[in-house]
């Protein structure tokens, strides 16, 4: 996808790191393209919308739950449309290899009203990225490129094409098209539906799909499920759909009529099966048990055999844990020893829930620790409320914890509150990406730096402290105890570089200093 974006002259790639989408922007940067991390997915999409309004080709990447954060701009960008190209990559995680839910983002294409492509391997990821740009420019619409873990985290052979020339960005005023006051939004919604009808005609006539002859069994599938199905039932007829919104109903109808038994094979929600049935076609779909987790060749064989007997559980592997030497180990052992009720958040530190710590009581979504902690403080009896602590990482704090701090200052619980910001100097969970509080860009160059403790003070938090817990475990413990005892608002920044990133961070810092010295000499 990164190579395709580079070959298509994408002017800007932006996003927020999230498994399994993170590598796209890193790779785009390494190829020489322009790629940057945004504080969160909503901002990333907004930046990409601006670039696309200005006539450029823009790529925005995120994991499935990231699109929840970016959903607000997505829905209205579908109304306004774009002048250049806007490709939104949603990397879904069926089976939850590294996520808190297995939501199926194909629903977003329908809900927002944007065309959607689903690649099944690396070659299609390349080809469909180019195609998404073409579709976006032709119909002036954002396009959703829906990936899944097994397409993202796989490598297959790719034949690249020749690089394409990109349009020169320039501003054209279009107030009625882009300023979504109701008077402009009403016709914009009608325009969107007309555009989708034209995209549907195109998909019907020449959209990306493959029909493999066979029978009497027929299979309709998309994405990686299609290659599993091809392998599980080589004798079956297969209709592999590349564009799954809007759907090519006529092609599906002809296919279904040509086989004796027609089965829809899809990972996650019965999205295709429901849509095809709603269009009046009788197709079979997987029993409900296959909605959970990833598909593979064996599971597809079972679906085709209508096998609903319990599946053998895979032998347990070794679960991940907080690294030995992780600065957060001190934090979680302290919280455990103090008997805290811990509203946790998304990151490596969620592993603080596991033994020997067991020091996390909630984990919902990015940034939720602060709001959830406040909610508990508001309603719990005082002796329990006073034990509630919110714990959030540095990257997660910048992503969506800042508004939680604002809420805390605006609606303080009677017992006050304590927020621990674990600043390990990197987005560790997804593989050591930079973020606005590291002061370095995606490519580790010096840039503006957000100072977490200054932000907390500026928001009006009365007690803000910074400490290195492993260097001073006793001091850290008393700091937390004092904060819990006060009926006021406290933010404690626990700052120490991630053990795995520390060496790299030093090297980036040295490189920045060396470059600065070189510039002074010149």
């Amino acid at each position: 996808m990164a190579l395709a974006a580079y070959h298509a002259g994408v002017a800007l790639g932006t996003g927020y790191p999230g498994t399994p989408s993170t590598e796209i922007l890193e790779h785009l940067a390494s190829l020489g393209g322009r790629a940057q991390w945004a504080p969160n997915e909503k901002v990333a999409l907004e930046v990409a919308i601006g670039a696309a309004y200005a006539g450029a080709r823009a790529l925005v990447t995120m994991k499935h739950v990231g699109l929840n954060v970016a959903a607000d701009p997505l829905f209205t960008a579908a109304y306004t449309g774009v002048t250049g190209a806007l490709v939104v990559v949603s990397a879904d995680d069926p089976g939850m290899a590294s996520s808190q839910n297995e939501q199926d983002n194909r629903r977003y294409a329908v809900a927002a009203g944007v065309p959607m492509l689903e690649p099944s391997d690396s070659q299609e990821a390349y080809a469909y990225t180019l195609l998404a740009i073409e579709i976006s420019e032709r119909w002036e619409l954002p396009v959703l490129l829906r990936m899944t873990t097994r397409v993202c985290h796989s490598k297959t052979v790719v034949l690249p094409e020749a690089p394409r020339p990109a349009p020169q960005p320039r501003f054209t005023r279009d107030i009625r098209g882009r300023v979504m006051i109701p008077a402009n939004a009403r016709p914009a919604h009608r325009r969107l539906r007309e555009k989708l009808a034209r995209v549907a005609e195109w998909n019907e006539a020449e959209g990306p799909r493959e029909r493999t002859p066979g029978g009497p069994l027929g299979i309709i599938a998309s994405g990686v499920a299609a290659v599993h199905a091809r392998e599980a039932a080589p004798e079956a007829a297969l209709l592999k759909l590349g564009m799954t919104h809007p759907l090519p109903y006529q092609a599906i109808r002809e296919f279904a009529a040509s086989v004796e038994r027609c089965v829809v094979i899809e990972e996650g929600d019965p999205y295709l099966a429901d849509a095809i049935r709603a269009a009046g076609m009788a197709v079979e779909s997987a029993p409900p048990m296959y909605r959970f987790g990833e598909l593979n060749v064996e599971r597809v064989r079972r679906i085709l055999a209508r096998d609903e007997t319990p599946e053998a559980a895979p032998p347990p592997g070794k679960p991940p844990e907080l690294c030995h030497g992780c600065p957060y180990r001190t934090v979680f052992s302290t919280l455990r020893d103090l008997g805290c009720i811990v509203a946790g958040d998304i990151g490596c530190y969620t592993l603080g829930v596991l033994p020997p710590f067991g020091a996390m009581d909630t984990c919902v979504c990015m940034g939720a620790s602060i709001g959830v902690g406040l909610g508990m403080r508001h309603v719990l009896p005082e002796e329990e409320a006073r034990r509630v602590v919110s714990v959030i990482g540095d990257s997660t704090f910048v992503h969506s914890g800042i508004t939680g701090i604002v809420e805390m200052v605006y609606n303080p619980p009677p017992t006050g509150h304590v927020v621990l910001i674990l600043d390990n100097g990197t987005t560790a969970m997804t593989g050591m990406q930079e973020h606005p509080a590291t002061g370095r860009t995606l490519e580790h160059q010096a840039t503006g730096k957000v100072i977490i403790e200054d932000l907390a003070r500026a928001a009006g938090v009365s007690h803000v402290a910074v400490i290195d817990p492993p260097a001073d475990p006793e001091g850290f413990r008393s700091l937390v105890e004092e904060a819990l005892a006060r009926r006021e608002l406290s933010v404690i920044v626990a700052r120490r570089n991630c053990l795995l990133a520390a060496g790299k961070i030093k090297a980036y810092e040295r490189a920045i200093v060396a470059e600065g010295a070189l510039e002074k000499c010149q």
Partner: protein
Amino acid sequence: MSGVTNIIIAGLGGQGVLKASDIVADAAFRAGLDVKKSEIHGMSQRGGSVSSDVRYGQRVLSPMVPSREADYLVVLDPGQVDNNRPQLRPGGTLIAPDAVDGSRLRSRKTLNVALLGALSIRLDIPEAAWLDAMRANLPEKVLDLNLEAFAVGRKA
């Protein structure tokens, strides 16, 4: 699927499972074959179990090795043998960490590549493709150390 070789490489985060599977996939590609590889990572850097599937042949469909159809299972950590063994097909080959004499390796970190050496003599991929794949996938400063480990594995 006939004509497809299925390999699973398993171990713990930080042992070089993904690097090893990159090298296998690249070597097969350099030998002119279709190849697909896939893995699950994300939590992998936190010391948990990691495994990667590599499949090659004239034409590969699914990127995942179907259950109990691995022709070769390469395991980097002794504690990860039993939980991965069920993936091996009847008659498939297990290459466990003790397949190579660890004392003959200059760095324990090269065990992944040493085990690839042991795997390589069982596969129909020319040695030159393996060597080119290692040159393309390993940093210059550890290349010689790894080429040496690969040679130790080939003699094991």
